């Protein structure tokens, strides 16, 4: 169910009713207590641990980026809705999520003013110009990231060097980038060990280079489990997406690399928080599973054959374009209606 529909069934917000024409069937009605703000603030809560770890690990600039991205996203949403004489929806938390996710999938060393431009691309260009929450075709945070990536490729691929648990501020590369250009040996070199177990440990707890909020696999998975427990996302989506990457990478490079690839880059945060976006992913579970499969497939293609070391962002954006087609493909038959082929 889309967030709008959930807001509607609650029926508390009378203003919502003015914007959507609803056909109200005769009673009995199923009531549910979910509202857009409730879902959105739960997602924020699920993201906060990983973001907090990013701040702890990468330092003050990470915190500055998170705050700037969130505040500017909310301000852009507010200004646009005032300007267009629309109902101001900044309290529903969707702009906060967009800002937070944007900061979390950008490098922690990003100049703060780039975060503002990323928020502009995400909120104004991607979300509000399409009609606001529920009408955007693409995941706003990833559009912001993709726009920044095109505009300032150097700033967007400058990573803070990891050195044990101490940050010394030297520019370095992400594990994925190192693996792509140097293979397994370069990877061992980066972590200073040739024991896969300790590499997994670094990746699992997040002691590695990468975007601000994508490093800590365990905290992201805990946040994702919370959303699954609350019933906001289907567990099949992240599982299929991550498993697709694991299986295909395993077929290419063997089991060790497959486990590494599943935890590296933005795959975990993308699979749990981006590919499950209620607005830009297909509506039915079957559709969402096809969507997740496609995301995993494109991620592997970009990681192995493409020009970029990481492909999660582009894979989700590409699959977003296919969402309407997937929805049409798996459209369930109306209850009681006769199937097409039957006589």
């Amino acid at each position, binding site marked *: 169910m889309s967030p709008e529909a959930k807001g509607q069934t609650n029926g508390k917000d009378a203003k919502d009713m003015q914007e959507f024409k609803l056909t109200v069937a005769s009673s009995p009605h199923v009531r549910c207590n979910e509202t857009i703000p409730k879902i959105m603030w739960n997602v924020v809560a699920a993201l906060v641990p990983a973001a907090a770890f990013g701040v702890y690990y990468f330092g003050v600039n990470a915190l500055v980026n998170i705050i700037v991205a969130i505040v500017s996203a909310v301000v852009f949403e507010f200004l646009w809705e005032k300007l267009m004489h629309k109902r101001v929806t900044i309290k529903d938390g969707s702009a906060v999520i967009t800002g937070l996710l944007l900061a979390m999938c950008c490098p922690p060393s990003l100049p703060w003013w780039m975060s503002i431009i990323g928020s502009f691309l995400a909120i104004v*260009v991607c979300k509000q*110009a399409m009609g606001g929450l529920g009408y955007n075709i693409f995941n706003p945070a990833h559009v912001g990231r993709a*726009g920044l990536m*095109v*505009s*300032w*490729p150097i700033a967007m691929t400058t990573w803070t060097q990891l050195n044990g648990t101490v940050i010394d501020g030297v520019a370095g590369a992400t594990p994925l980038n190192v693996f792509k250009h140097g293979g397994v040996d370069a990877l061992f070199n980066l972590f200073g060990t040739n024991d896969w177990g300790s590499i997994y440990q670094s990746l699992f707890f997040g002691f590695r280079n990468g975007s601000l909020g994508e490093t800590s696999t365990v905290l992201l998975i805990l946040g994702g489990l919370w959303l699954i427990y609350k019933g906001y996302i289907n567990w099949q989506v992240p599982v299929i997406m991550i498993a697709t990457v694991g299986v295909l990478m395993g077929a290419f490079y063997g089991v060790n690399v497959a486990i590494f690839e599943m935890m590296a880059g933005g795959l975990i945060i993308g699979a749990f928080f981006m590919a499950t976006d209620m607005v830009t992913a297909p509506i039915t579970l079957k559709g969402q599973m096809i969507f997740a499969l496609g995301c995993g497939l494109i991620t592997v293609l970009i990681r192995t054959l493409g020009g970029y070391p990481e492909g999660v962002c582009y894979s989700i954006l590409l699959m977003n374009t296919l969402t309407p087609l997937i929805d049409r493909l798996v459209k369930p038959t109306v209850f009681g209606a006769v199937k097409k082929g039957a006589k």
Partner: protein
Amino acid sequence: MNLWKVFTRGIIEENPYFVLALSLCPGLAVTTSIVNGLTMGCTVWFVITANNTVVSIIHKLINKKVRIPVYITCIATIVTCVQLFLQAFAPDLYKALGVYLDLVVVFAIILARAESVASKNGVVVSFLDGMGMGIGFTIAMFLISFVREILGNGTFFGIPVFGPSYQPALIMALPPGAFMLIGFIMAGFKIWNEHVERQRQLKGSEG
């Protein structure tokens, strides 16, 4: 027909680029710098005016069934003249515009004005329509290239405006940035035109 209106409608009310939305490709391709954008605009301005005039003179002699090839031949002739002119007097610009100068031949806006105005009206009306549409197109090219050069390159007519520390937003120099920009300017034109239309209706109901 009000001749002044024929002339001015192409500038804002029926701007060929932002309202009629014809010939969008040059706005993506050649508007990375103001000089290129203006050259493209002026080229189209000249071609559309000259072609409208020629077609309005000869349209009675043409068999209706072969009119499109004849129009295209006219346009191609005029474009070739412009190309030779630019090659002789502004070889740098000629190189910068490259293949897009040849493509002026198939710009939808030129054929559309020939078909919808020049082949049905006299010389004066066709000439004024071509002038107005050409000015509208040139303004569009200038607006797009102005924003794209400043944001995407940090310069205005090649002069740096932000100082050396400015990091240009490459997306504005690439087609996606141009697409977004065109969308927002189009929205602006639509808001303005609706505003004007409402004022006109208010006046009409009062009078």
